[in-house]
């Protein structure tokens, strides 16, 4: 993969931070955007901004066509069976909440159980806590072992006929662990439970085929797949989405409204009340096209090389411990340094032009599991280079020297 050519498509990578060339290693928080995504946004506003699905004028037709084309692209991107299984949301968080508020309220009752894991993002914890509290249901947690992998034997023992839903992260944002989702899903289905996958971190790295893995719901965010903020995708199996109650009421999601009764629209519009985020959805298509054209396998090969290199280089630093050593990982390294607070490292790296994430990464229970306040996380994307990892290592040596 020609990383240099790819880098040139990301204008932000040319900028300087504190007088040094930017090294952007916070890709798991949000990825940078290629020029074509930025262009898609300005092109929409410059040439065919209009409200969709309603107007009969040319602009409205063009905008509607572009918006629906994005749905088709998203469908292909995750291997969904039909475009109506693609609901545009604000992001992963909204997707999970949508399921909790609709499917959850319809299907989870007192004494029922929902299984999540010990490595969930708060977005995949809190909506279920709210639901459990409301319904008198019980939240069960799959433990995480010292390597940062799920204890699958415990998982299997947690499943029972009380389990209504298993909602787990496909790839951990704090550890990089790739979870064995096929196994998780098959076991859940045998127990009669549905499965939601939090795909916030997996969509950008892994090949996603929702039909092959047979998950019931899959949620991801546009901004982590080189697309804009404010748009995401919720996939749901058609028969489930059809049987679920509506989420928000308003325009777009209706067929006919009288004061006596409203007839709801068909899928996917049933779940897209109000004027959607048209511009960002259209630009999301540009991002997904960019990934597909670059090739996920090529991206992965490159990122795996970065991961192996970074792991070896970082491990050689005295006092440094990597948190998360799962057999299967995406290109992300979380670590701590003996006697040094992660935040101090983050501040000093920033002064050297290096953007990493420090803290609990919205996974406080996971940090508690490892008995640490947080980690320093370097997460890599297709445009990162080995030289940047060298820069990180050099800067870390300097940082440690300053702090100890």
């Amino acid at each position, binding site marked *: 993969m020609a990383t240099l050519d790819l880098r040139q498509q990301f204008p932000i990578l040319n900028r300087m931070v*504190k007088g040094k060339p930017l090294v952007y290693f916070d890709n798991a928080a949000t990825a940078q955007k290629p020029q074509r995504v930025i262009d898609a946004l300005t092109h929409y506003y410059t040439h065919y901004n209009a409200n969709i699905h309603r107007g009969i004028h040319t602009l409205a037709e063009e905008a509607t066509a572009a918006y629906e084309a994005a749905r088709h692209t998203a469908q292909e991107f995750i291997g969904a069976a039909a475009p109506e299984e693609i609901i545009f949301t604000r992001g992963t968080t909204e997707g999970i909440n949508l399921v909790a508020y609709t499917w959850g309220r319809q299907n989870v009752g007192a004494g029922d159980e929902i299984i999540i894991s010990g490595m969930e993002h708060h977005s995949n914890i809190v909506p279920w806590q709210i639901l459990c509290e409301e319904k008198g249901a019980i939240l069960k947690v799959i433990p995480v072992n010292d390597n940062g992998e799920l204890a699958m034997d415990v998982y299997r023992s947690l499943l029972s006929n009380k389990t209504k839903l298993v909602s787990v992260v496909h790839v951990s944002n704090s550890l990089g662990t790739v979870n064995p989702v096929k196994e998780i899903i098959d076991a859940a289905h045998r127990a009669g439970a549905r499965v939601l996958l939090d795909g916030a971190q997996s969509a950008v790295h892994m090949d996603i085929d929702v039909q092959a893995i047979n998950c019931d719901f899959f949620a991801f965010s546009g901004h982590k797949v080189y697309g804009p903020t404010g748009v995401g995708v919720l996939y749901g199996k058609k028969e489930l989405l059809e049987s679920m109650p509506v989420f928000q009421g308003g325009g777009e999601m209706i067929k006919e409204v009288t004061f006596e009764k409203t007839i709801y629209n068909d899928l996917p519009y049933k779940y897209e009340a109000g004027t959607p985020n048209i511009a960002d959805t259209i630009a999301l298509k540009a991002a997904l096209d960019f990934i597909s054209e670059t090739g996920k396998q090529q991206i992965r090969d490159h990122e795996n090389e970065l991961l192996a290199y970074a792991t070896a280089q970082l491990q050689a630093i005295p006092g440094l411990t990597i948190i998360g050593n799962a057999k299967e990982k995406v290109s992300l390294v979380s670590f701590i340094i003996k006697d*040094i*607070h992660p*935040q*101090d490292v*983050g*501040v*000093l790296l920033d*002064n050297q032009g290096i953007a990493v994430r*420090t*803290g609990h990464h919205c996974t406080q229970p996971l940090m508690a599991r490892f008995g640490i*306040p*947080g980690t320093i996380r370097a997460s890599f994307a297709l445009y990162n280079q080995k030289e940047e990892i060298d820069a990180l290592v050099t800067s870390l040596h300097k940082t440690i020297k*300053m*702090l100890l």
Partner: protein
Amino acid sequence: MDIKPINDIEKDIIEDFGLFDSWEDKYEYIIDMGKKLAVLEDEHKLDENKIKGCQSTVWLVASYEDGRIFFKADSDAVIVKGLISMLIRVLSGHTPAEIIEARLDFIGEIGMMTHLAQIRSNGLLSMIKQMKNYAIAFQAIDNQQIDHK
């Protein structure tokens, strides 16, 4: 006790920072201040003394003697500790009214305003707020006592 006005202490710090021409020097100074901060006894490291809104843990306690407030603090992150140490140097030993009115312009002058912007990550703003809250509380107690007299 002879205590320098808040403004003068701020000026001293600004002068100190004026001598540094690299970010390394600045941060080494802050880190050094952090390491030298007077210890906070473990008995004060209670949840109720923790400042919310910080990525690191920050404890802050205040005592009130003869109309003056004295602060003590600690943190598990040394840069934050250095920042608190500077705030303590500026504010500790002053009257509630002086602390409430302090503008603390030195933070911007020494280029640490970005730390203020990152409210959620290191909570410099939360620390200042908490210090001022102590001042407001002690002032209120004083006023009550005056009312009762």
